[in-house]
């Protein structure tokens, strides 16, 4: 297969070509790796796949580059805005309320997925009912202790029975990295909707796009494999 006309010591720029090919491969990975990841991640499943790129495990992201440290004692959740009874909850207050437990997959918009995560917390709908939502309220905005992240749900989405204000994950208090002491969990949507370090629940008259929405992610982040193009709950916008 080697052309015999060329002498054995004639130089070919194989090195440069290999270099450019590898770099091009990397560029393609950045541009199109998201799709490949989805396939690989679902094939590897859990187990050893957890430690390999593309495996199913949590990746910890933070917008600010650090994690807010809030002690359980000093934690406060403010429910305010267009409500009849604005209130501030301590962690103890939340734990005293009827608890809901659920096991749900956690799907990140960047492609990774963690199956079967057990959560425990208070239904958001219970908090809203107690607060007494005013008729003008059309959406809920969520604020984070990190000072930058924010999220939003329509009032109907916020009343889904599996939207949780969670204080336990895998049977333990939600860790600081995972958004503890209290985070939002919206299992029917991509992970960025599950705001970490929840500090405030504000009832507002229209949807305020959150941090990630302002950076290009869909406001209605329904899980469907194609970044919220279709809504499995058509009645909920």
């Amino acid at each position, binding site marked *: 297969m*080697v052309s015999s006309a*060329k002498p*054995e*010591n*004639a*130089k*070919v*720029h*194989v*090195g*440069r070509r*290999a*270099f*450019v090919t*590898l*770099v091009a*491969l*990397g*560029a393609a*990975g*950045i*541009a*199109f*790796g*998201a799709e*490949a*990841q989805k396939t*690989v991640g679902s094939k590897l499943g859990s187990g050893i796949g*957890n*430690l*390999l*790129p*593309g495996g199913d*495990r*949590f*990746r*910890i992201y*933070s917008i600010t*580059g*650090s*994690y807010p440290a809030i002690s359980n004692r000093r934690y406060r959740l403010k429910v305010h805005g267009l409500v009849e009874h604005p209130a501030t909850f301590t962690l103890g207050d939340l734990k005293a309320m009827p608890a809901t437990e659920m096991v749900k997959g956690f799907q990140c*918009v*960047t*492609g*990774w997925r963690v199956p079967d995560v057990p959560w425990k917390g208070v239904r958001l709908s219970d908090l809203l009912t107690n607060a007494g939502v005013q008729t003008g309220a059309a959406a809920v905005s969520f604020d984070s202790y990190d000072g930058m992240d924010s999220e939003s749900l329509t009032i109907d989405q916020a009343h889904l029975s599996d939207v949780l204000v969670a204080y336990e994950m895998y049977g333990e208090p939600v*860790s*600081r*990295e*995972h958004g503890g002491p209290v985070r939002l969990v919206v299992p029917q949507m991509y992970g960025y909707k599950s705001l970490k370090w929840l500090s405030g629940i504000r009832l507002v008259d229209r949807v305020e796009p959150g941090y990630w929405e302002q*950076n*290009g*992610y869909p406001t209605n982040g329904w899980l469907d494999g194609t970044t919220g193009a279709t809504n499995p709950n058509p009645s909920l916008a």
Partner: protein
Amino acid sequence: MTTMTQQRPSLATLLRFDVVQRSVHWINALLFGALIVTGSALYFGSFFGIVFARHTIQMVHLYSGLALPVPVLVSMLGPWGRRMRADLHRWSDWTRAEIKWLRTLGRAKLVADKFNPGQKANAIFVGATIVVLLASGFVLQWFRFFPVSWRDGATVTHDLFAFAIVAAIIGHVFMALTHPTSLRSMFTGTVTEEWAVRHAPAWLAEERGVNDD
């Protein structure tokens, strides 16, 4: 041959890596060490849920990564980079015999140059991988300036190439430890002629000024 010997007395030692190359190598080794340690902590730490000074580790990783190409580029640009540039050409230009040697995993006959085809392939692989890691790392850090899907792609690309380069570095360290003369030349810069006769005869001939055609 006699006249040749009179003009150029045979050298007891040969300069394999000059001080610029050695400095760049060890600065890179240091930065790579920092990148691997911090990268592993970030990668495995979040999986095992270990709480540590994550922000600090992220910053060490970021700045080590950003610093990584600087010594290499500086070493190649100025008048001090003559040897660096010459070696770069050696990695790029391959003879057919070298390609054959690599394809047969070292079984084909070869009069080896300064670097054998395995070393050349490693250099190219590591160089290209650094470029990919820099590019994907850049997208990860400043994701806001890129399409959303690039962040997803950069995540998996950065992981895969990082795994690959760590494997290459483990191989590199293993080869260095099992070839002490080669390793020593990265400290002292020189190798003996005896070594060159065995491991880099084509280079030896070139250094002696003998036309090997």
